[in-house]
């Protein structure tokens, strides 16, 4: 069997293309679990804020903390055997959180409604950025859900927490399920 140089190059390009697709699919599947988890966290938190605001009070922080613990657990479980925890991902998450905390609590002068809109859109901005490196699904989710949250901020009136439960909760869950199939 004789293989010409251009044929060999085409075969190797084919191999590289398949390997890139498998790697992207692994990233999507791992990220989808985290997105679904945060969909559930957002849904529970925002539904409680909408329906039982007096009971929730500062307890929303506990719900978010459970989300962070779950995220670390998923990252540890889905990491390749023997690999260390993705510290860079966690560092990026912490930097986003620190940036958000400074603006939400010190500099921004946000009211409760602005706080509720700010946090999910901040992290969705991170998704939109991640899409530039890891696949367009991240950007689609980041930009699409941000647009829906901003629309709710402007037009949903007193139903904004319920709107957030629907969009940042149900929307995340649906996007995560879509990403698993992508």
């Amino acid at each position: 069997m004789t293989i010409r140089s251009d044929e060999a190059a085409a075969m190797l390009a084919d191999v590289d293309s398949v390997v890139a697709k498998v790697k992207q699919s692994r990233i999507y599947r791992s990220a989808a679990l985290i997105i679904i988890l945060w969909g559930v966290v957002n849904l529970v938190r925002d539904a409680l804020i909408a329906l039982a605001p007096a009971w929730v009070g500062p307890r929303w922080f506990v719900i978010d903390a459970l989300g962070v613990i779950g995220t670390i657990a998923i990252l540890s479980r889905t990491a390749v055997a023997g690999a260390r925890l993705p510290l860079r991902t966690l560092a990026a998450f912490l930097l986003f959180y620190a940036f958000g905390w400074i603006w939400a609590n010190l500099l921004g002068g946000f009211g409760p409604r602005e706080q509720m809109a700010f946090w999910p859109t901040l992290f969705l901005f991170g998704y939109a950025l991640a899409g530039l490196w890891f696949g367009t699904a991240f950007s689609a989710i980041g930009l699409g859900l941000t647009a829906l949250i901003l629309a709710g901020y402007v037009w949903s009136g007193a139903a904004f927490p319920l709107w957030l439960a629907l969009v940042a909760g149900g929307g995340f869950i649906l996007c995560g399920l879509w990403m698993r199939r992508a």
Partner: protein
Amino acid sequence: MDGPDEVVHQPVRLRVMAALTACDPSDEGLDFTHLKKLTGATDGNLGAHLDHLARAGYVEVSKAFVCRRPRTTVKASAQGRAAFARHVAFLKAIIEGA
């Protein structure tokens, strides 16, 4: 320089092996539907190529029921990984020698 691996050389089987060897050996492998999407092959075509690879000892095929639905999972064997690595090295050598 070794010659081409006749089993791996066929385009669909080359894509299958590329996909399977991109997974970590400790992973469970890839399911049939995912492989079909990655290779662009039809059910029957992919099934025939997987049989060919399995007969050569390059892949391990396992079938199970998940939520009452049949699921076929395919994983590259150590022998398959080695054969694929040799074939890729062969292709690279052709380009470098051109």
